[in-house]
């Protein structure tokens, strides 16, 4: 249940951001993170909230593992 996935920030309006991974777009809340992400950065999303910001580099590392491990096209 504590599943969380990295998603790319596409736009931000106040405490709400549009994020995307692998063609799946979601609107999420940013209430739980101190420093707001920049566009193009990634956030770890759990239950509709970002719980942590990731640098693009760190996110790419994780996404690469997902792509190779599960044969997914995410980016």
């Amino acid at each position: 249940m504590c599943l969380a996935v990295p998603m790319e920030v596409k736009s931000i309006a106040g405490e709400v951001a549009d994020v995307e991974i692998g063609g799946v777009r979601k609107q999420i809340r940013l209430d739980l993170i101190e420093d707001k992400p920049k566009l193009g950065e990634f956030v770890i999303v759990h239950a509709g909230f970002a719980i942590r910001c990731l640098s693009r580099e760190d996110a790419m590392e994780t996404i690469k593992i997902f792509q190779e491990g599960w044969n997914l096209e995410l980016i």
Partner: protein
Amino acid sequence: MEVCGTHTVAIFRSGIHSLLPASVVHLTGPGCPVCVTHEAEVAAYLEMAGKPGVIVATFGDLMRVPGPGGASLKQAQAEGARIEVVYSPFDAIKIAQDHPQDKVLFLGIGFETTAPTVAATFKAAREQGLKNLLLMACHKLVPPALDALLSDPDMAIEAFMLPGHVSAIIGLEPYRPVAERYGLPAVVTGFEPLDILQSILLMLEMKRQGKPRVINNYKRVVADEGNPKARALLAEVFTVCDALWRGIGTIPGSGLCLSPAYKCFDAFEVLGVELKESKPLPGCRCGDVLKGLLRPNECPLFAKACTPATPVGPCMVSTEGSCAAYHKYQLDISSH
């Protein structure tokens, strides 16, 4: 022992079991929030769901969990109860706004990963002056459960694989007293097979060197200090209280209740529902499975009376439950 349903699934799905030597035994602990939700809590939310003028908003995970007499939210819904499955707790605000004449009850289950999302939701509800959104807080905290498991003389846990996303909130510090008191290696771990194998290696090395400590092996997501803003929200909305865990019973200081400033959202008070003494599900050994004392396939009901299609207990209901994982991946663990 791992204490995270996502680890349970990742370990089973990746076949790591088959790689482990006989001297390394993987135990699944109480890491599935659905599974550890106590029978009395299930009975209480089913009672609330039946009340007139109540709409239940819940994560889908709880829909099929069996309660007294085989009742479930899914069954209640089929019989006319109003139940909405939400992806985010925040979705419950919209439901409450759309139904001002009803009371919308959000079922707050989950560990430290999920509880801040609920805290942020109720903080927003308070700021908006929303009067018809209620919370049944059944949140549970991981470190007190680890302490409770280790203090049980029947347990033979030698290392903990710590949950990645719980740790993203609480950081490493809360685990240290437990790990130090019992001299156990403990490793915060990600969810890819290599993350898991590397953590097992770290545990074994610490054990061999006789230098147990808490290590963060999921640094790409977990900061050692966790997420202070999320913890501040938790501290504002909740207070720590004792909590009931299925199969374990009451663990002191292992739950979250609404703080005095948020009592107006407390479903127990507003709807007048109490946790009552409840009987365990007949024949279900979920409690022993959650403590790692019994492997799922050693339960007399496993794959006979209890299957994913007709689950008797929550460990078979939740996709993250160890019984469901054993069943799905058809593990032959007789050699372990």
